[in-house]
C-alpha cells in the first residue's frame, strides 16, 4: 500500500498535457514536424535521420502537484505534506509519462508529373497516464474510520500504459498554390499494454437504522476491469529472454493495430497560413497474450452472524468464514479472460494560425521582389496553436502563443507560451541548427522552472539529429 502511494506520488510529481509538442509543431521542417502534421509545407528534397538519434522526446508531468510540494526541505513532516497533497488533488488530476524515440526516419521528394513528398520511419513510444484515485488514496492513507457514509468511487481508478513501436509511411502533396495536404498510415506493434479505464461502482460503510450489525459495508454496482496484453508470456522469464521477446514484438511481432494521421496547410497569402492535423486516429487489436480481469456485482457485508447451532458430538462447526468468502466470490465474481480486445489510440488534434513577417531570410534589404510565387521564409513568424488529446476522461487541451526567429539559414529559435487547465506559466524554447544540411534541434518546456525542476508540474525535452537536403 505504501509502495503504491510513494510510486504514485513520486512518478507523477514532476510533468502536463503530455505529448503536446508545441515547440516542434510547424517549426522548421524536420521529420518531426511532418510527424505532427503530415500536411506541412515541405521544401526539402530529401531527409534522413541519424538512426536512434533523429528524434527523442521525453515528457513527464502531473497536473496538480510538484516534487517540491512533497519533498521540500522545509521542516514540515512529509506525512503532513502528503495529507495536504491528497486533500488538494482531485480525481481529475493526472500523472503522465510520454517518451518517443525515432529509430529510423527518411523522406524524399518524388519529382514527376505530380510531385509528392514521401516520408516514413519507425519510432518507439512509451505512453502512460494515471488519474489520481482520490477516494482510494484517502482510504489507503487514512482508512474509513473518519469517513463513515462516504462512497469510495471505483470510477476514480483510471490508468493506462502502452509500450509500442510504430511503423509509418506518409505522403505529402501541394494540392494547389494555397493548399498542401498529407496523410500518414501507421502500423502499431504493441509490446506491452495495461489499462483500467472504465470502472464503476462504489464502496461505502454506513450506519443504517435496523441493520443487523453496527455498519453495513456495501459494494454497489461494481464493474471493474483490467486489461493486459503482453504480460503473461513474460512471466518467469529471465531478463535476457524478456528483452529478446520484446524485441521480437517491436519487429511487428506484437499485437498489431492500424492508424492514420492527416493534416493540411492552407496559405491564405504570403504572410498568413493555417495548419491543422489529426494524429493517431486508430486502434490496436489485442488478440494474443491477453489477460483480462473483471469483477462485477453487489455485496453487503455486515460481519459474521453466529447462530449458536446445537451440535451433536462430532458434528463440525458452521464454517462461517469460508461461507462468507464463498458468498463474496459468488456475488462479486472475478473473471479472468483471455479474449481479445480493441483499444483506441489516444487521438491528438493540432491546429495553428501562423503569421510571417519581416524581411526574407537571406535578403539584406527590404526587397521582396525575389518572392515570385514560391514560399520563401521570412525571418519572423508568430502565431497561435491549439492542441488536444483524447484521454480516458475526455479531452485535455492546450493553447500556445509562439514566436519564431530565423538567423539566416543556420539558426532558428522558437519560443512558446503555453496555457492549459493546469499551468499558466509554461514558457518553452527551442533551437534549430543547420550546418550544411545536418540539422540539430533541441527544445524544452517550462524554462521558468528549469532552475528548480522540483517546482515544475511538467518537464519536456526534445532533441534530434537529421540530414535534410534542400
Amino acid at each position: 500500500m505504501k509502495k503504491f502511494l510513494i510510486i504514485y506520488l513520486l512518478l507523477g510529481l514532476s510533468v502536463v498535457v503530455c505529448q503536446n509538442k508545441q515547440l516542434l509543431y510547424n517549426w522548421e521542417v524536420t521529420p518531426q514536424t511532418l510527424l505532427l502534421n503530415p500536411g506541412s509545407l515541405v521544401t526539402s528534397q530529401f531527409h534522413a535521420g541519424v538512426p536512434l538519434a533523429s528524434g527523442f522526446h521525453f515528457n513527464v508531468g502531473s497536473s496538480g502537484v510538484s516534487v517540491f510540494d512533497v519533498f521540500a526541505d522545509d521542516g514540515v513532516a512529509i506525512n503532513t505534506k502528503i495529507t495536504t497533497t491528497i486533500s488538494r488533488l482531485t480525481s481529475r488530476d493526472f500523472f503522465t509519462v510520454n517518451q518517443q524515440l525515432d529509430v529510423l526516419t527518411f523522406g524524399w521528394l518524388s519529382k514527376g508529373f505530380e510531385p509528392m513528398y514521401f516520408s516514413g520511419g519507425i519510432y518507439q513510444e512509451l505512453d502512460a497516464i494515471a488519474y489520481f484515485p482520490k477516494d482510494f488514496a484517502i482510504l489507503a492513507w487514512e482508512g474509513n474510520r473518519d469517513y463513515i457514509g462516504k462512497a469510495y468511487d471505483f470510477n476514480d481508478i483510471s490508468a493506462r500504459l502502452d509500450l509500442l513501436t510504430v511503423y509509418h509511411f506518409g505522403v505529402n502533396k501541394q494540392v494547389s498554390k494555397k493548399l498542401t495536404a498529407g496523410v500518414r498510415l501507421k502500423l502499431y506493434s504493441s509490446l506491452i499494454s495495461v489499462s483500467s479505464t472504465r470502472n464503476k461502482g462504489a464502496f461505502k460503510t454506513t450506519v443504517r437504522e435496523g441493520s443487523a450489525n453496527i455498519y453495513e459495508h456495501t459494494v454497489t454496482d461494481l464493474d471493474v476491469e483490467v486489461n493486459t496484453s503482453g504480460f503473461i508470456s513474460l512471466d518467469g522469464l529471465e531478463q535476457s529472454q524478456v528483452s529478446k521477446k520484446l524485441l521480437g514484438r517491436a519487429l511487428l511481432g506484437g499485437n498489431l493495430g492500424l492508424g492514420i494521421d492527416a493534416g493540411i496547410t492552407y496559405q491564405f497569402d504570403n504572410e498568413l497560413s493555417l495548419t491543422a492535423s489529426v494524429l493517431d486516429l486508430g486502434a490496436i487489436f489485442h488478440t494474443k497474450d491477453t489477460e483480462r480481469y473483471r469483477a462485477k456485482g453487489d455485496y453487503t457485508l455486515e460481519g459474521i452472524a453466529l447462530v449458536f447451532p446445537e451440535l451433536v458430538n462430532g458434528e463440525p462447526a458452521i464454517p462461517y468464514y469460508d461461507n462468507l468468502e464463498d458468498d463474496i466470490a459468488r456475488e462479486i465474481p472475478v473473471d479472468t479472460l483471455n479474449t481479445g480486445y480493441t483499444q483506441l489510440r489516444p487521438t491528438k488534434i493540432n491546429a495553428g494560425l501562423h503569421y510571417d513577417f519581416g524581411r526574407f531570410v537571406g535578403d539584406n534589404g527590404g526587397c521582396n521582389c525575389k518572392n515570385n510565387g514560391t514560399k520563401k521564409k521570412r525571418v519572423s513568424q508568430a502565431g497561435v496553436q491549439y492542441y488536444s488529446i483524447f484521454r480516458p476522461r475526455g479531452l485535455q487541451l492546450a493553447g500556445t502563443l509562439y514566436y519564431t526567429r530565423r538567423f539566416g539559414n543556420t539558426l532558428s529559435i522558437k519560443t512558446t507560451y503555453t496555457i492549459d487547465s493546469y499551468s499558466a506559466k509554461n514558457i518553452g524554447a527551442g533551437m534549430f541548427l543547420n550546418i550544411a544540411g545536418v540539422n540539430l534541434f533541441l527544445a524544452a518546456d517550462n524554462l521558468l522552472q528549469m532552475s528548480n525542476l522540483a517546482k515544475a508540474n511538467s518537464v519536456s525535452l526534445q532533441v534530434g539529429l537529421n540530414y535534410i537536403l534542400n
Partner: protein
Amino acid sequence: MEIKIYKLFFLLTYILLCGSCFEGTDFDQANDVVVTPEIELDLIYFNLEASKFYDYANNTEILVVQDTTDLDFLGGSDINDILKRADFFFEFTNSISREFNVSFDFLNEQNTSKYFMQTTVASGSEDTPVVSYFVQSLDEVQIKELTKAKKVLVTVTIPSSSQDLTGVLNLQSKTTYYLQIEQ
C-alpha cells in the same frame, strides 16, 4: 558569424541541460513516510432467543451456549507487522430478564487461547431492553498475541433459565484496526 551562432547554440544547450536541477528538496524524507490508516469493520453479530437456554425435550436448563468462527484475516505475519492497535466494540441489547456473562476467546489452530476477554450483560425485559457496551482496546503487545489467533470462541453463560423465559440477547460488534505501514 556562423562560428558565433554555433557557440550560442551550444552555450544555450549547456545552460538548458546543466543549469536545471532539483533544489530545496530532501528525498530522504521518503524514509519517514508512515501510512496510518484506521479501518472500521463489522465483526460478529447474533440474536440469541431465550429458548436457546432451555432444552424443552429433556426439560433441563442450558446454562452455556457456544459458537465459533474462523477469523482468518487475523492470523499471518503481514497483519502482525502492521497492526499496532485494535479497539473491539460490543453493543448488547438484552430483553431477557437475566444477566449474562459473555466471553470471547481468541484461539490458534491448536485451540490454545491467545487472547481472552469477557464482560457482563445487564438483564432487561421485553418491554424495556437494556443496552450494555463493552470496549476493549488492545495495545501492541496484546496485538502480537491476538494475531497468533485464527478463530474466536464466543461463550454466553446464563445463571439460570426456565421454559417460560422470553426475549432476545442481541449483539452487534465492530473493530477499529490501527495500522502502521512504514519502511
